[in-house]
């Protein structure tokens, strides 16, 4: 399971280094504690990242430890590194682009081709709920790591709400309006406006029209 997607390793290593001088192993452990639901950081990646940070003047070698065991290089953040870290945190992350997700690809294909879209939505819903259940049972080591779990839960919840919208578009011939589905994602509109609304004059109650269109 990889919850932290697109996280720039260099920026995280810089963030970890800002807490004080550290060697590669410290940084790996720090990373894996911060993102304990994510993929552990490989040693090779730590050292490659440190080399890059050093080359770019964002980190520097502080000293070399030779206490009994193998030599260990301790790195520290430079003023340029601190500036870069501050700028990184200050800049909002790019909201995820719609349409680039396997969930959306499969849903659109199932709806467009009429490949048992209702069954697809039901199976996907079950898969999402099972993952959510597993996440909810994950013991939280500290409040911030709980926060990372909650991000994953919130994403699953958003997907589930979107799937409800998709389920409302399922018609007998399987044809639907996936373009509008994507608009739902783009607008971040996960509100409870399923086309199953009971009222006859509901603006959303056009599922039949859509399938005929």
């Amino acid at each position, binding site marked *: 399971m990889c919850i932290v997607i697109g996280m720039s390793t260099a920026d995280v290593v810089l963030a970890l280094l800002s807490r004080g001088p550290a060697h590669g192993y410290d940084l790996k452990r720090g990373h894996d504690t911060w993102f304990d639901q994510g993929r552990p950081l490989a040693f090779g990646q730590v050292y490659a990242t440190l080399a890059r940070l050093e080359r770019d003047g964002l980190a520097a070698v502080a000293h070399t430890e030779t206490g009994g065991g193998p030599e260990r290089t301790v790195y520290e953040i430079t003023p340029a590194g601190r500036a870069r870290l501050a700028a990184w945190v200050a800049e909002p992350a790019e909201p995820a682009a719609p349409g680039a997700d396997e969930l959306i690809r499969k849903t659109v294909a199932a709806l467009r081709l009429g490949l048992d879209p*209702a069954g697809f939505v*039901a199976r996907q*819903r*079950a898969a*999402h*709920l*099972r993952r*959510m*259940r597993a996440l*909810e049972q994950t013991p939280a080591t500290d409040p911030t790591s709980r926060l990372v779990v909650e991000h994953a*839960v919130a994403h*699953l*919840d958003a997907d*589930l*709400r979107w799937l*409800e919208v998709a*389920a*409302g578009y399922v018609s007998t011939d399987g044809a639907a309006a996936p373009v509008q589905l994507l608009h739902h994602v783009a607008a971040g509109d996960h509100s*409870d406006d*399923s086309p*199953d*609304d*009971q009222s006859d004059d509901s603006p959303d109650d056009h599922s039949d029209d859509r399938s005929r269109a």
Partner: protein
Amino acid sequence: MTPPSTPGDLPGTPPPDHLAATVPVPAGAVLEAHGVQHAYRRTVALRGVDLRVDAGEVVAVTGPSGCGKSTLLHAAAGLLVPQAGTVTLLGRDLARLTEDERALLRRREVGIVLQFGQLVPELTAVDNVALPLLLDGHPADGARRLALDWLERCGAEDVAATMPSDMSGGEAQRVAVARALVTGPSVVFADEPTGSLDTLAGRQVLGLLVAAVRERGASLVIVTHDNTVAARSDREVRLVDGTVASEAVLR
């Protein structure tokens, strides 16, 4: 925290088998509903729904607003006799019981949390919670002590002496949960409060209910719009337009 004792520990408790079982309990099932249909004056709410709940199982009933969740819950809990189909709850065919017998079954063996406020407006929280015990002739001080235990367990001890009109939506819901659990029911039916609670407060109360039911090994049918609540169940039954659209085993 140790759970408060059940009313079985109180003196003067009537024996639980006060109602003759008209139908044998299906092995493992506490609830079996078959072909349940129900229509209100102009609306068909249920179009032939089957629902089985095993002992110790937590089942979430989900679906879009108006799909029939509350109607199904009311039929399963014996608050409503559906126009067609059978409901067997704890071995009793509900349609064959009198209204009084159904009321007694609900009070003694079933816990119910309804969607809309259902506390008795003239009673304090502790008296609301003690009410099912008092109605069954339990001594008042024992009933109140147990009611206080459950209020505390549900995080509502601060409003023990408060009237329902002076409670927040979340507090009233906690009190309702305490009242549903005070008799030590083997089945609990809960309809998610809508409107009165913000999502987080609602989740906390329902989470508490699920935990309490699991600890006791009781069964729970919980109606919810909240995916994170559904994800705490063992099985999700999804209704769309009065029929079961899908089921998912989650455990």
